[in-house]
């Protein structure tokens, strides 16, 4: 047995790569912040608005091409997560020597267990996909702690994810044959067909709106609270002399506590729920009986085709 040479974690080369990966984690977020600072119009006080539009091209054929803040932020989050993954898996060895390897192993193990428990052994290859959804969604929601617009507060982003999940669900539903699926729409009685059809499209719609609504409502309530506290502080403490009267003292504290619920807890919860619903919907979509019958039929036909030329 050949002992694989362990990477020297104290060498200059290793540390330089480490620093580059940490920069890959931090720089996209910093770039998003700089873009936001450049593009934010000068206004006074708290302002509730959607995502900023960075670039708009009206000359596109179907509809204008809009590059908005939420898109750019989600790209930043993606690059940042890529940096995090590369950093955690940098210098992997058979026997863990670094702390980051333990963290990476813990994450992989937990997510794989989650997928195996909820989807069954047939879908165990779905671990990376589900983990990617959880990570992207959670980090997108948590990015608003840095003062950036969280991409999940925009229905276009969560709608895109939901459409992706919808295609996956349909792929597994068609496993039992298109005809069987089509017949299934008319069960238990043909009158239910429109409702069943609406139900098919309601799944991705409700997933998208659930995630988006939770994050957006948190952002709106936080902004309303902050502006209300600012006004209250101006009326109550406005008599203080000079600059002291202009500082909204009452805004200290309470919005932070609200933020722990709305941004941290709700963001992580919604990421988990989105992944959970993805797993349940996809694993529940496979018509096992029809699929097995179809596989048997195909195997029999193949066997028949093989026998005929012999006979």
């Amino acid at each position, binding site marked *: 047995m050949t002992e694989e040479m362990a990477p020297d974690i104290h060498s200059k080369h290793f540390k330089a790569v480490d620093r580059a990966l940490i920069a890959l984690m931090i720089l996209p977020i910093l770039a998003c912040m700089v873009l936001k600072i450049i593009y934010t119009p000068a206004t006074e006080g708290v302002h509730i608005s959607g995502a900023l539009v960075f670039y708009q091209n009206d000359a596109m054929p179907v509809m204008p091409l809009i590059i908005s803040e939420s898109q750019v932020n989600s790209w930043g989050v993606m690059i940042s997560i890529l940096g995090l993954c590369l950093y955690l898996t940098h210098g992997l060895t058979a026997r863990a020597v670094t702390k980051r390897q333990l963290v990476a192993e813990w994450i992989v193990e937990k997510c794989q267990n989650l997928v195996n428990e909820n989807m069954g052994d047939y879908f165990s290859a779905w671990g990376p996909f589900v983990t990617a959804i959880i990570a992207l969604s959670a980090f997108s929601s948590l990015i608003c702690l840095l003062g950036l617009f969280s991409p999940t507060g925009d229905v276009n982003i969560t709608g895109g994810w939901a459409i992706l999940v919808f295609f996956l669900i349909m792929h597994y539903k068609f496993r039992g044959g298109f005809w069987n699926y089509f017949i299934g729409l008319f069960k238990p009685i043909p009158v239910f067909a429109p409702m069943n059809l609406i139900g098919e499209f309601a799944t991705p719609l409700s997933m998208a*709106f*659930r995630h988006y*609504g*939770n994050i*957006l*409502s948190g952002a*709106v309530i936080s902004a309303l609270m902050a502006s209300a506290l600012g006004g209250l502080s101006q009326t109550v403490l406005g008599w203080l002399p000079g600059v002291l009267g202009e500082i909204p003292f009452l805004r200290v504290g309470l919005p932070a506590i609200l933020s722990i619920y709305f941004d941290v807890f709700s963001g992580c919860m919604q990421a988990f729920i989105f992944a959970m619903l993805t797993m349940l919907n996809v694993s529940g979509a496979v018509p096992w009986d029809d699929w097995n019958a179809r596989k048997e039929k195909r195997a029999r036909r193949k066997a028949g085709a093989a026998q005929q030329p012999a006979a």
Partner: protein
Amino acid sequence: MELAMGIMLGLLGLGAGCAMIAGIGPGIGEGNAVAAACEAIGRQPECKSSVTSTLIMGCAIAETTGLYGLIVAILLIFVAPGMFTGILKDAVTSMKG
């Protein structure tokens, strides 16, 4: 023109308030769910963790209908005025012209 604008904005606010009646349903439903979960934990304290995780998951899903109402209210307050003011102005100018 001003009167029409005032009536429109007032009705939009009223509509947003009415849309939030949707918050009643999830409130009752989640209350029932928490009551049932408390009962289950009281009966079998050893399965507290699984009951709690199922409860949070179920509560988040039960919230959905309330969130639909919330989204409608937010759209009525922040998006609809900008849209409807343009339509109203166009209608008034075409009536005059």
